[in-house]
């Protein structure tokens, strides 16, 4: 309990005694240094310019490589391959579709029906 008159006179001394002695956390100091240093490095070109230049060089190399791949000539089959051989003449091959299309086969089917 504090008497009124004492409270009147001691208010300021109580205020002084209630000062917080907290002087910060060591870890928070490290965090502060890191935050400031990160910002500082981002700001000054001498820190990020080499990284940017290296990244640019890598990107340019990749682009050049991709362009080389893209502009490769299309593969042309050699002259002796099956694709370049002329189509066989009618009747020389034995494909079943050509047999079904023959008029003799269709007339025989029609006569048997009648």
């Amino acid at each position, binding site marked *: 309990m*504090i008497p009124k008159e004492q409270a009147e006179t001691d208010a300021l001394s109580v205020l*002084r005694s*209630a*000062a917080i002695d*907290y002087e*910060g956390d060591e870890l928070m100091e490290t965090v502060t240094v890191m935050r400031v240093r990160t910002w*500082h490095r981002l700001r000054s070109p001498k820190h990020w310019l080499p990284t940017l230049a290296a990244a640019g060089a890598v990107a340019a190399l990749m682009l050049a490589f991709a362009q080389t791949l893209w502009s490769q000539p299309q593969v042309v089959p050699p002259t002796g391959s099956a694709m370049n051989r002329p189509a066989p003449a009618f009747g020389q091959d034995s494909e079943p579709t050509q047999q079904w299309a023959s008029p003799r086969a269709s007339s025989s089917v029609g006569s048997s029906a009648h």
Partner: protein
Amino acid sequence: MAWVRTNTIATGATDTFGEDAYYVSRCREGDDAAMRILIGRHRKRLVRIAANSLRDAHEAEDVVQDTFLKAFRELPRLREDRAFSGYLYRICVRLCMDRLRSRRPEPGLVDRAVNAEGSSVETKVLVSKLLQHLTPDLRLTLVLREMEQLSYEEIAETMDVPIGTVRSRLHAARERFRELWSAATEGE
């Protein structure tokens, strides 16, 4: 960091302001070590000021981080390197002021049933509650004078106001605090 100290002695910058000026000039050239030294030199004091102003240790840490970020970001604006500490404290006090202004004042008067002769924790809690009832200007002036024991000139520089304003604010703050203290402890 040994080379930094050696250079400091070599340049004859042995006083606090001179050393600050030396590190600030190194900092302007992008020296990380100098920046770290400046943070180490001023951080504890700033945290104390912020903690006493805001009555909150965690908020004080946040404010001090913001203070250093702002201080180094706006370093090109600092005309005189020797004035770095004043510049730093001014930023810190402004940030504390902003935080205090954005706080919503608690309604009603403080609890009366506090035994101020009891634990120091109770006293600190009571003082924190009483300080909430002062305006940010009065509160910061009172804290800087009574808790941090800054001179009137230092307070004027830190708060960026004339010395007469400091005197009048301090007078009003003391009166108000006495009234609040009496109201909180009367009838015990």
